[in-house]
């Protein structure tokens, strides 16, 4: 059967109607905002501009946070209170402990290696002739989806039995080196590390872009002065560049850590969470939406939220300290 363009028309029509209706509402708002009373405070004006986003955020984020927390103390259907049972379940079941261990592996390795790669690379290509092309190569994975990236790497890890021609690069390299090809994604805990590689591959570009901007902001006078003093590239990096950009390094590390805690697409696409590779985000999806265990799923979501909070607090404290240092 050929591709039916007419089957797609209702979607496009609804798209146009929805966007037009939305813009019409906003247009009315923009007119209405100046029709209201003028008082000392902009009550009317603020109400006009804040109400749409305010309602969406209250309904879609504030209320759900409360509701999910409540659900985490209830049974599978969300109506019988069970106290801390869901949390006890989380920390006593071996398969969930494995999930927690995997998440820990992700949060330890992915941010560190992605940031380190991005940092090293941005220093190496800084002020080289091909800097912009070189940066694009590393940055490109940032643009594609985690699903696309997962398929790319699934292909790298592809396995054929020994003796057959390999189609995955990794196994071919192993064979050329005289080794036996392996089904990489089946053996834990190595498979979790191989999934982490995918996230590093994606996030290193982000780290590079942010760190590269920070490196360029290091005052040229300092670098020149150090060069005149006979400091070589290695010393320049450790004694001047790295200390100068340290706050940014922390920001990048924490940002990637927060992203890593929520990682879902990679695990789901590459292994579906099988073979001992599941992580909190994937397990939450499975419990809440596939096994109908709303209580378990909610408890996992709450735990993930609790893990994110300290990271963000450190982040905010860092930001404030940097701003104070800059204003001095």
């Amino acid at each position, binding site marked *: 059967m050929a591709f039916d363009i007419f089957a797609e028309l209702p979607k496009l029509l609804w798209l146009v109607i929805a966007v037009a209706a939305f813009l019409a509402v906003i247009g009315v708002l923009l007119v209405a905002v100046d029709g209201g009373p003028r008082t000392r405070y902009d009550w009317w004006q603020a109400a006009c501009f804040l109400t749409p986003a305010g309602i969406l955020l209250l309904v879609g984020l504030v209320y759900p946070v409360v509701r999910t927390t409540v659900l985490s103390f209830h049974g599978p259907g969300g109506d019988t209170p069970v106290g801390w049972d869901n949390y006890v379940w989380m920390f006593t079941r071996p398969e969930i402990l494995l999930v927690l261990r995997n998440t820990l592996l992700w949060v330890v390795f992915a941010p560190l290696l992605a940031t380190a790669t991005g940092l090293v690379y941005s220093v190496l290509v800084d002020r080289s002739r091909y800097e912009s092309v070189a940066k694009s190569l590393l940055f490109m994975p940032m*643009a594609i989806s985690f699903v696309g990236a997962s398929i*790319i790497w699934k292909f790298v890890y592809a396995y054929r039995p020994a003796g057959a021609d390999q189609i995955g690069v990794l196994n071919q390299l192993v064979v050329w080196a005289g080794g036996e090809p392996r089904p990489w994604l089946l053996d834990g805990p190595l498979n979790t590390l191989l999934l982490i590689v995918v996230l590093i591959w994606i996030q290193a570009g*982000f780290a590079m872009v942010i760190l590269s901007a920070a490196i360029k902001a290091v005052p040229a006078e300092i670098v020149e002065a150090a060069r005149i003093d006979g400091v070589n590239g290695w010393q320049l990096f450790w004694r001047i560049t790295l200390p100068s950009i340290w706050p940014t390094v922390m920001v990048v590390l924490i940002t990637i850590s927060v992203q890593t805690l929520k990682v879902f697409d990679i695990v789901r696409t590459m292994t579906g969470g099988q073979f001992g590779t599941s992580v909190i985000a994937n397990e939450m999806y499975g419990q809440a939406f596939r096994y109908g265990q709303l209580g378990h799923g909610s408890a996992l979501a709450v735990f993930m939220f609790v893990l994110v909070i300290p990271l963000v607090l450190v982040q905010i404290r860092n930001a404030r300290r940097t701003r104070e240092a800059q204003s001095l």
Partner: protein
Amino acid sequence: MILSPPRAAPEPARAAPRPTAVQRVRRRLSGSGASAAAIVIAVLWTLPTAGLLISSLRPEEQIKTTGWWTFFAEPVLTLRNYDDVLFGGTSQRQLASYFVNSFVIALPTMVFVVVLAALTAYALAWMNFPGRDWIFIGIFALQIVPLQMSLVPLLSLFSDGVTIGTTQVLPPWDLPGAFQFTRVWVAHTIFGLPLGIFLMHNFITQLPKSLIEAARADGAGHGVIFRRIVLPLIVPALVSLSILQFLWGWNDLLVALIFAGGSVEVAPLTVRLAEMAGTRGEEWQRLTAGAFVSMVVPLIVFFSLQRYFVRGLLAGSMKG
């Protein structure tokens, strides 16, 4: 700081003594060592994508039996895989429909988030009302809420509606056909708003205060100021946020899985590809071509608008 900058010296670099021959050799060596390392990293980063691209263009029998690197020994190219994956088989298997769905999901969300974020950020930056800072801090804090916290309650809001006491305030959204996109749009918009508002606020607060105050003194209302003065000035920021939001919408898997389901009517490319990777993991000719179909749009956006993409990320690197 370890060294204080020598402000007095007018031309410090030019005045430096010429390096000796040995120094020059050493510098060149370390320089080429650095270049070699950079090239190794760049190759490692590009090779997986290149391998997939080459494979997607090879005939099916070859993809399944030999590695993509043998292509260089016996180059055979074909677009058959793309034709097959886009238009072949039953409508449930054609990626072309899912491709349209990805657009229908990503474009409106982009418009909704950018417009609402700009309005909200303007109000929080330039309107005068008590509690303003608390609202801003509240929205800032919402950035850290993981999607996962919101999925179960939001989905039940959509499917059961809202009941306060015994009165039904909002009916359940039992939407047929193309109207199912509405749920995905609303969910994406909600999840995109906190960071969107934060980014826009960063840009809008940087506008000169005198500009807004002069317009206020001339009697212009906030609606007029927003339309005539602020919007034209923040176009680069609007473009940055549009790109980020479009790519998030296009690349998302989780929100679409939960709010769109897996049907060919509304599911985006990512959902279909993830499914193919699971159930048809050995159909490499379809997987490789399919992955590239899903990557074409982000890559075009990336290579043509990279400058704005980077700017958005830099402004948002505080994202929690």
